């Protein structure tokens, strides 16, 4: 029982962590709480679903299609909505509010286009039935999820630390003006981060959609609430913190649902968020900071 719960927690937690990585990355670089980020969960999942149903693609090809579509949508959305505000040097609250309007707009449009009902991937896509490994009952898709998340996280860390674009992204996150003076193309970095983070969000959406075999226009909203808890607890913009906090939140949720009450599961993220703000307002690994005169 406990082993099974821990395994389920690992599956859930790794998807949470993947989702929150992109969320915290956007904040770290663009300095914007981008609520549209939740929309890319459903956008990616729907694009993958369309690719399976209308284009007849297989699991991996459809997944890649969904991820790329969501990434491109994000580049366009950010260009239309956030770039004008960045140029005008608008306060950070304006950017938050504009993405709030944006996500309401996009989610409602999506519901008008696709309908509110839950859609499912065809059964053939999900592979064989669950297998028993020792004390664990494991669905093949759960193994796909864990493997995908770990490969992507490793790639992300390698990309951020070892490549030219990754270094440029970190430079812009640190000091955008200085980075621009050093010859970093800030516009390109911003577009790259938009694409990359939406791609992570869409991947999480597709994995969640496959895991529960349910895709619907508002599937990003519960993810966003968890995402907020994770990036606050992990520290805004802190990639390593998001990874730890994401796994921890998955663990807490599964344990609460398993041993306390499944109704309370929905409250775990919010409670963690408020406690985090009271106890560690700068995140798990954060140092005190703040604007001083």
């Amino acid at each position: 029982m406990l082993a099974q719960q821990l395994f389920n927690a690992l599956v859930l937690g790794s998807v949470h962590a993947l989702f929150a990585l992109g969320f915290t990355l956007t904040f770290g670089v663009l300095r914007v709480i981008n609520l549209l980020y939740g929309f890319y969960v459903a956008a990616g999942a729907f694009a993958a679903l369309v690719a399976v149903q209308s284009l007849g693609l297989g699991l991996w090809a459809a997944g890649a299609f969904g991820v790329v579509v969501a990434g491109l949508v994000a580049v366009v959305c950010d260009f239309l909505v956030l770039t004008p505000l960045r140029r005008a040097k608008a306060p950070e609250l304006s950017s938050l509010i504009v993405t709030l309007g944006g996500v309401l707009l996009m989610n409602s449009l999506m519901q008008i286009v696709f309908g509110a009902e839950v859609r499912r991937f065809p059964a053939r896509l999900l592979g064989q039935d669950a297998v028993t490994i020792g004390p664990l009952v494991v669905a093949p898709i759960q193994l796909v999820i864990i493997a995908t998340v770990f490969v992507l996280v490793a790639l992300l860390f390698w990309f951020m630390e070892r490549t030219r674009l990754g270094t440029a992204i970190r430079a812009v996150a640190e000091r955008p003006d200085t980075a621009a003076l050093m010859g970093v193309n800030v516009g390109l970095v911003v577009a790259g981060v938009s694409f990359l983070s939406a791609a992570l969000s869409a991947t999480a959406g597709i994995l969640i959609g496959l895991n529960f075999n349910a895709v619907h226009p508002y599937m990003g909203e519960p993810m966003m609430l968890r995402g907020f808890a994770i990036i606050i607890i992990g520290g805004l913009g802190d990639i390593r913190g998001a990874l730890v906090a994401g796994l921890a939140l998955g663990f807490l949720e599964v344990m609460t649902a398993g041993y306390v009450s499944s109704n309370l599961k929905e409250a775990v993220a919010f409670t963690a968020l408020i406690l985090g703000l009271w106890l560690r307002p700068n995140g798990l690994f954060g140092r005190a900071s703040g604007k001083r005169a």
Partner: protein
Amino acid sequence: MMATLDDLLWSYQSLIYGLGTNAILGLSMYAVLQLGQLSLGQAAFMGIGAYTGALLTLRLGLPFPLVLAAAAMVPALAALVIGGPTMKLSGVHLAIATIGLGEVLRVAYINTDAMGGALGLSGIPEKSTFAIIFGLLAVILAGFILASRSKIGRACEAIREDEAAARVMGIDVSAYKMTALVISAALAGLAGALNAHFSSFIGPNEFAFEAAVSILSFAILGGVTTPFGPVLGAFVLTALPELLRPFHDFRLVFNGLIIVLVVIFLPRGILGFRIRRTGG
């Protein structure tokens, strides 16, 4: 003449009452936005007030003024707990702390039988009258206007313009922010109770994310440079869907679009984050 007015009130009663309660909600958002803070918990605070009020009326039969006072106080307490830790942090943190409140409460209402569960509470007696709603709106509006013209108003403007500078000038920024949040939660709770006592029904799904964004759109459209802004915004956005019934499905799309367009094309003017003082 009186007969026509009565007729008008009767056939459009819920719309007219809705204009009043939504204007109070717009002002509740104004209370925090004018400090450069953003609360996304206004719908949740409204829901706490609505449930508190409805339960006190239905179960205990308390007199209406007492019900309204309690409906304002309970969400104010919730605001202290949730907003408390964010007062020394940026405005973004308050938004993050409050955004999940509605969803958590929704699940709580559904799973609590004493609160009517998924069916909600119905048969709430109609105790809100035109005089009570618009009388309270007038008092609240007058309070905000007086405050904005006093020392308090200038302090709020200083905080919104530059928090660090305001602090240096000796303004207790955290106290101002906390007070604003508590007032805003109390007003939202009051509006919720007023609303529950004329619609006769409240349900767990009425106070979720969409409702929070609608309340924000009242203040964004009207602007927060004067307290009249959110009232005007609430009037326009409450009346408009009635006039545009054929487009009812696009109501949320429209709400989202208004926010996006106003913030991008009138970022400083209507939001009023950087108002230039004209004259003295």
